[in-house]
């Protein structure tokens, strides 16, 4: 369904990512792991065409992914967002429908219903008129999750979604990831959390400037692979 072929990124003469090849199927939840600076976000941004100096191709259903971005819901890192921006919860979630609505038009009734359902699903509909800045980190992340849901995309990508969120939000997110899997969606999740949450993922990608390993948790999280990625197997907490 999603194929990454010979993906390399160089950044001002430095190689940020080298020759990554992997593919992901429908109904699959994939965790992307690696140390800071391993190129996890770079890989995602290169796949989506958000950065330049990229070699290689990313195909989605046989066609370049960059030509099908309407099928993608992307949740950026928390640090990329200005949380003091004057916007309400409802309008953040409604951003999901911007492309579908089209230029010079108001969101359709169907769009409003989708946004309402998505906010209800993450437990944020009651707070729809609040400013995004008035919410906790976990609530903000749930609004972004609702935005991703309301887009009804086939490929969902989350960059560090668990940073700064509470346990309740984390549980809701994994519940929703499971629902999306059952709807044959493909989910890529960048994470740092090498704890028991690893068991949620169908497959793990381990990166450190190159693809170290891809496969099931037990195949990937070996001492040798962890040493290749992190320099030491000690970071791995739960088996």
């Amino acid at each position, binding site marked *: 369904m999603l194929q990454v072929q010979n993906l390399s990124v160089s950044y001002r003469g430095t190689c940020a990512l080298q020759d990554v090849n992997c593919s992901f199927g429908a109904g699959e939840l994939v965790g992307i792991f690696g140390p800071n600076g391993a190129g996890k976000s770079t890989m995602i941004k290169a796949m*989506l065409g958000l950065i330049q100096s990229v070699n290689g191709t990313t195909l989605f259903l046989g066609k370049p992914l960059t030509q099908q971005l309407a099928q*993608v819901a992307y949740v950026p890192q928390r640090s990329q967002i200005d949380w003091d921006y004057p916007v309400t919860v409802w309008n953040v979630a409604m951003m999901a429908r*911007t492309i579908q609505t089209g230029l010079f038009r108001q969101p359709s009734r169907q769009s409003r219903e989708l946004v309402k359902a998505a906010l209800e699903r993450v437990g944020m509909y009651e707070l729809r008129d609040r400013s995004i800045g008035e919410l906790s980190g976990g609530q903000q992340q749930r609004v972004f999750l609702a935005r991703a849901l309301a887009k009804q995309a086939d490929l969902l990508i989350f960059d560090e979604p668990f940073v700064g969120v509470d346990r309740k939000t984390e549980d809701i997110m994994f519940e929703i990831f499971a629902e999306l899997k059952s709807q044959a969606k493909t989910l890529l999740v960048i994470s740092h959390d090498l704890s028991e949450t690893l068991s949620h993922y169908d497959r793990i990608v381990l990166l450190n400037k190159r693809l170290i390993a891809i496969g099931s948790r037990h195949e990937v999280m070996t001492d040798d692979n962890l040493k290749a990625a992190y320099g030491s197997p000690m970071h791995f907490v739960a088996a």
Partner: protein
Amino acid sequence: MLNGLLDPLGFEFMRNALAMGVLLGILCAVVGSYMIVQQMSMMGDMISHSVLAGLPVAVFLGLPLSIGALVAGVISTIVLSGIESQSRLKIDSVMALVLASFLAIGTTLVTVLPGANRIDVMHVLFGNILGVTRSDLILTFGITILILIAVWLFYKELLFYTFDPIGAQAGGMPVRWYYLGIVTAISLTVVANLQTVGVLLMIAMLVAPGMTAYLLVKELHQMMVMGAGLGALSGIVGMYLSYYLDIPSGSAIVLVAFGLFLLAFLFSPSQGLLTQSEMKRQLADRLRGLTRSP
């Protein structure tokens, strides 16, 4: 009182100046709101100084000054993003360099290009709202209407882009065009302001009403509407102060805008410095009461 308000309206220059103050108040608040939420205020300052480079070229080529100013403003942003994206330098230092360099190009060309020395640099730097002509008013009215229509048509796209540019780009939106649209709108607003407040004070006109509104409301469109009201009010009050106190009109308008900002900064119900400390005091009193009760 009423006579005091009506007397100045007997002069055409005053009527034109007041109309210009209202128009610029509205235009600056709308464009300035985008600058504030995108943290592009210093870019507005850079563009306003950079337009000076286009004025002597326009005179030399026999083009309207506004065209020269607009082109120079847009080119300065292209130079800025070119240097910033191709180097490790941070955007604030690149902006400082571009601002000063374009200003230097402008002042040099004024003396070098044939005919360009008829540009009054002092006038460009400080503006003169009392010298506003009917054609200046028509130009500013046109720019204001154009930008208001564009903002109305592209509001939801610009909201998404300015809130989450990476998410918008990842969703397939043509973000480069939106960026170019915003910098063009800033440049057009600068052109409209050039005659009136001049290069040096322009940045305050652009950001002060929006900043004041930002402290009082919670949505971008509310910030624009309230900012427009505050901007127009600053223009009118500033002009009357200028008329009666005989102080420079641009400075008077900016000082009124700053006064309104200070009021919001101190007394905003949700974010005011004094109202917040009062709320904290009341909360502390209430908590003390709770701990005392059995």
